[in-house]
């Protein structure tokens, strides 16, 4: 067997290994009920949940709570199926949090609570102003 063939086999093996491990390490987008089931069946992998902040009838965000010393906070997130869940985050509130339209939380359930290790915010208004400030 030629050396080039051996190298080719190794390269193919590594490439397959990369694809398989990516599939293994990839997270998934789920809703809170699925995430809860996964956690109760012993799955510890972190998952993505997309949701919106809970708001009252007049559109004010409710359920925001600051942790001790302002170094953490928790909030209520409503997923696509309408399930409401308290989410804890071990960092102070990100600045554009309350103006975000959608929140993606990455993390997992710890008991009855969802613990986020990372929060991604979708703020379409951030880079594209919807309204012109005509009084300027």
């Amino acid at each position, binding site marked *: 067997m030629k050396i080039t063939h051996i190298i080719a086999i190794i390269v193919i093996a590594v490439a397959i290994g990369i694809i398989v491990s990516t599939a293994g390490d990839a997270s998934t987008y*789920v809703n809170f009920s699925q995430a809860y089931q996964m956690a109760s069946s012993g799955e510890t992998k972190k998952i993505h949940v997309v949701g919106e902040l809970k708001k009252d009838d007049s559109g004010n965000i409710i359920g925001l709570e600051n942790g001790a*010393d302002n*170094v953490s906070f928790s909030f209520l997130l409503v997923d696509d199926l309408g399930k409401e869940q308290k989410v804890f985050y071990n960092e102070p509130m990100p600045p554009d949090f309350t103006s975000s339209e959608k929140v993606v939380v990455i993390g997992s359930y710890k008991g009855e609570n969802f613990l986020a290790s990372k929060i991604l915010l979708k703020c379409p208004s951030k880079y594209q102003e919807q309204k012109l400030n005509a009084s300027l």
Partner: protein
Amino acid sequence: MLHYFIGDLGHIFVITSFVTALVCAFSYVKANAITDLGKKEAWLKNARVGFYAHTFSVLGIIVSLFVIIYQHYFEYHYAYSHSSLHLPGQYMVSCFWEGQEGSFLLWMFWHAVLGLVLIHTQRAWEAPVMVVFGLVQAFLASMILGVVIPLINIKLGSSPFILLRDAMDDPIFKMQPDFIPKDGSGLNALLQNYWMVIHPPTLFLGFACTLVPFAFCIAGLWQKKYSEWIKPALPWTLFGCAVLGLGILMGGYWAYETLNFGGYWNWDPVENAVYVPWLILIAALHTMITYKNSGTALKSAIILSISVFILILYSTFLTRSGILGDASVHSFTDLGLSGQLLIYLLFFTVAAIILAIVRWKHILSSEKEISIYSREFWIFLGATTLCLMGFQVLIPTSIPVYNKIVALFGGMSNIAPPANQIEFYSKFQLWFGAAVAILSGTGQFFWWKKMDQEKVKKEMLFPVLITLVLWAIVISMARVTEPTYLLFLFSGIYIIVSNVKVLAGILKVNPRLSGGAVAHIGIGMVLIGILFSAGYSKVVSLNNSGLLISKELDTEFNRDNLLLFINEPRTMADYEIEYKGERLEPRHKSGYVKKNDVEPTADPYKVVATKDLFFKDKKLYNAKDTFEIYPENKYYEIELRKDGKVKATVFPRIQINPSMGGFIASPDIVRNLSADLYSHVSLPMNPEAEPEWSKPEEMKLKIGENFFVNDYVAQLEDIKRIDEIQGFKLSSSDAAVEASIKIQGEHEVYEAKPIFIIKDASQVGYLPSEINDLGIKITLTNIYPPTNEFELAVSTRQKDWVVIKALEKPYINIMWIGTIILMIGFTLAFVRRFKEFREGRKAEV
């Protein structure tokens, strides 16, 4: 008055740039196909004129757009959404490429410049190479065309010269079509940074450079000059590696200095989208050098040169089509160009692949078996590893694309990128990085000539021994224990040692050839720097109070952030740390001034000093001076002490920007030889929230009497009658007295001056005085002339605070120095290859 002319002119330039690019490509095709020399010359002339006209149009677009931004023509969408009246001049350049249209323009500009250089230096290759350039330019111009094709009603491109009223659906334009906003919405504060002035042009020059080897490769395949294209393309590939690498590094450095994720690299899709093409470009460079020296690896060079450009197109598609959506923290405005971008990508991918397949069997490849005692063997292995390294990043980065494709076929896929991207990518890239370093370190011992086992042993013995010794020293000093880190460290030291040996040999013989060795030493330093700064980065702002995050959540956490009250020392790492208050930055002097020492004016950009202002013993302003500031920038002075001595003062910044969602924090970095201390604000006090004052405590005092407020010693010094209050004269029927109270704070003596007013001899008014730093408000509530006593009401609030996060980044400077050495190596190599190319051309003539 709307300035229609400049926009129309710009739009005409856009259209001519598109048309001339097509004319140029067509004429070069003709020139290529015709054998009659006279006619060929005529077509060539035609094509060149086309390209000159194209370059002129591109410059015309840039000048028109710049005039719109610079003159503040806010009737144009581009000026309104990317600039504002108060934007400093140097950042107006950044506005230019904040928008997608501007960055396309920048890309076109560099292609035009490179095209001009090629026309003048590559007589033999001019026609086929410039066909590729013309086509690419036509595609790019189409992205900013902003023209609706009649009949099928499809909009082609998004023009940067669109008027605000056409871009935005606002009722004001119905009532008042000529409405022009007085000010623009401004440039994203994060981009108001000198790196953002030079990083995008560098990066796009790097992008543009990848077109050169691609165009030469395509020209070579097309003209059946299967191997001759390598020589003219090689210096450009080197130049591209250097510039693209530099562009990426600048981006990393900007992120380190400006963003607050705590590092220079985040494995964000946007970063990956340029990292992968760079790795493949480096691999292509090595295979090209191998071909030049040993006549092998031609097919790899062809495949890789094509891949690099296609990967650049793929990243353009990923980052600009909006497909990344939830996957990236960077937000991209979707200009609705996805279809056009996809056609751009597919056109060149399909064309290049078909051409390569058709020509494949004609490409010579060396039949002899590759020997493991040859240099090309090791370089080839290294290039293969680089490709796998890129592949490993490309696969997960493309996850959103798979979801889209599955959805396109009616399926439903919910794959998300790995939850912890940094951990995920690092664990693979670490191994690949070590492998590349070991392969390239070893390859250096085979100096293009065949060696046998004995010779190799002799050559390698000494460097390997030195590496082992150095390795042992570093391990014991830095206490590296993690097995993968040990391997990585070994590889980094090994590549440095072996290349130092090679360098020493080369310097004796021919210093001109030292580029490769220098660049590899730089790579070794970068690897070691990354290992320490990322692998051993630690949060030092740990909050050790032992509190739970919440009663409902009974898990304990690392609390990575620290709450600091003003003037109250805390301990952090080995430091005593103290928050000393908010600071402002004068626009025209370097330094910071205390926010409490200035008074605002009606113009938010101007403040008045209430006393002489000093920064580090240097006088900045006199009392009553009016000076300009940046109102959106707020700094927090934080002092770090060790054994009672001030070690450093940091000024992390937040930028208030309601349209960006509140505030943006940027770090301040204390740079030491062994480690950087990196700190940023993670939560500021909300300036709009009304403070909660305690119930006023009343006390009766005589002049000269001491008292306590909020545990501070205070003294009522004096009471005097005043005739004017804040510049307003009192009328004869009014009376006012002002108390002066001295309060001994931690670091300075503060003065409070509450005022008691009697209006028209009957109505009583109070003007309380606030000491921000101490959280105290004092009101003079009554005067008792018979006993000569005065009544004060004192209320207190929570003191000013800030939450910060701080990280330590050990030996990060090794990485930055390594990048500089890498760039020097690239430059040396480029100079050498360029000279070779020039000498070769002279020899031909």
